């Protein structure tokens, strides 16, 4: 039974849970599944729906809040704050990701065209949700 949360997430074993959830929330914010102002589930709900320790849920929320994706409004609760800031560190991290992507694509035997096609497809998919 998929967790009843306003963002898509499928937890896989082998990766730290917190990282996976943070990534899922980031993806949701980027793709528009979560828009600024949307209420974000409480730590308790996160913990219960995801079957994780409330402490872990707390860390997830704290991390997202620290990155600026969530904000705590008095009287309202936790809300989605806005898209993550574009920082130079992000671009550097992205460069590493792109290098990895290229290496993997080459190993998989893809040409540049095919790789770009894949990228386009993913971009469209995340943009569609912003729709």
């Amino acid at each position, binding site marked *: 039974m998929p967790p009843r949360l306003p963002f898509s997430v499928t937890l896989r074993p*082998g990766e*730290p849970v917190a990282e996976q959830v943070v990534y899922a929330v980031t993806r949701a914010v980027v793709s528009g599944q979560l828009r600024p102002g949307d209420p974000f589930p409480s730590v308790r709900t996160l913990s219960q729906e995801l079957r994780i320790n409330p402490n872990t849920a707390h860390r997830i929320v704290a991390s997202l809040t620290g990155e600026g994706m969530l904000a705590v409004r008095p009287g309202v609760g936790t809300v989605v704050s806005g898209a993550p800031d574009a920082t130079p560190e992000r671009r550097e991290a992205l460069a590493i990701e792109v290098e990895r992507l290229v290496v993997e694509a080459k190993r998989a035997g893809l040409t540049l065209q095919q790789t770009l096609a894949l990228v386009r497809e993913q971009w469209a998919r995340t943009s569609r949700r912003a729709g």
Partner: protein
Amino acid sequence: MNVIETQALGRRFGRVEAVRDVTLAVPAGTVFALLGPNGAGKTTTIKMLMNLVAPTSGSATVLGVDSRRLGVAEFQRIGYVSENQDLPDWMTPSELLAYCRPFYPSWDEALASRLQAALALRSSGPLRSQSRGTRMKAALLSSLAYRPELIVLDEPFSGLDPVVRDELVRALLEVPDERPWTVFVSSHDVDEVERLADTVGFMLDGRLVLAERVDALLARYRLVEVVWPGDVPPRVDAAADGWQPQGSSGRTVRFVDTRHERPDAMERITAHFPGASVQVLPMTLRDILVSLAKRPLHPEAV
């Protein structure tokens, strides 16, 4: 503040040392999962923590009190559920609740109802005629309704189907609110606890072989698969750099890199296997523990 602390805890039965030299600490607000195969000493360790059995060496502190002096005041804040506990099986689940209630000043009736809903527990006949799952649910319900600060679970999931397991976890997560909540759960089944646990401890033959945060563990363990271009690939040395060989077949060599969090981890691999095709795969907690159980005991190589 550590809710549970042990110092070289050990227990000997005659000649056999069921538990030896176990030192661990469980901070408040965390979930500690004690994993290991049957007979590893998990149940004995828990029994020592709950003062059901006295340690023959070392000591343990629970809720700030020496485990041998646990008394009424401490047990009012502890919930203990074990697969080998004798429930009063002539009682129905609601009778069991009514029986326990007067002993706990922090009993929360509203929480009890929510737990009952989360567990899908209908009060029916006496416990002795109920299924194992229902008995476990009743035990859990009577151990959570007073919002204990420490919850100790000894193999709570064994013999239960996935639906019931899910309900148990759901009930467990119903409990914590602003007050601190610590869980110490033992299991030989990794899947249920992987998501829930902050820290995992692994016991093998009475020893605590490993005690580490789950995310750190997941971050540093990788399964490496190398396809050697030639016929005879280089050997993987068991103690070298935290690599644990997992056997090879033909040109394919597999090993577990336990220190893959190091920045030069990939370089070491490619240096050892120049020109080979290397695949690095994440390992689930289950994979990690299986690899731990299978290898000979080299404490430094963990």
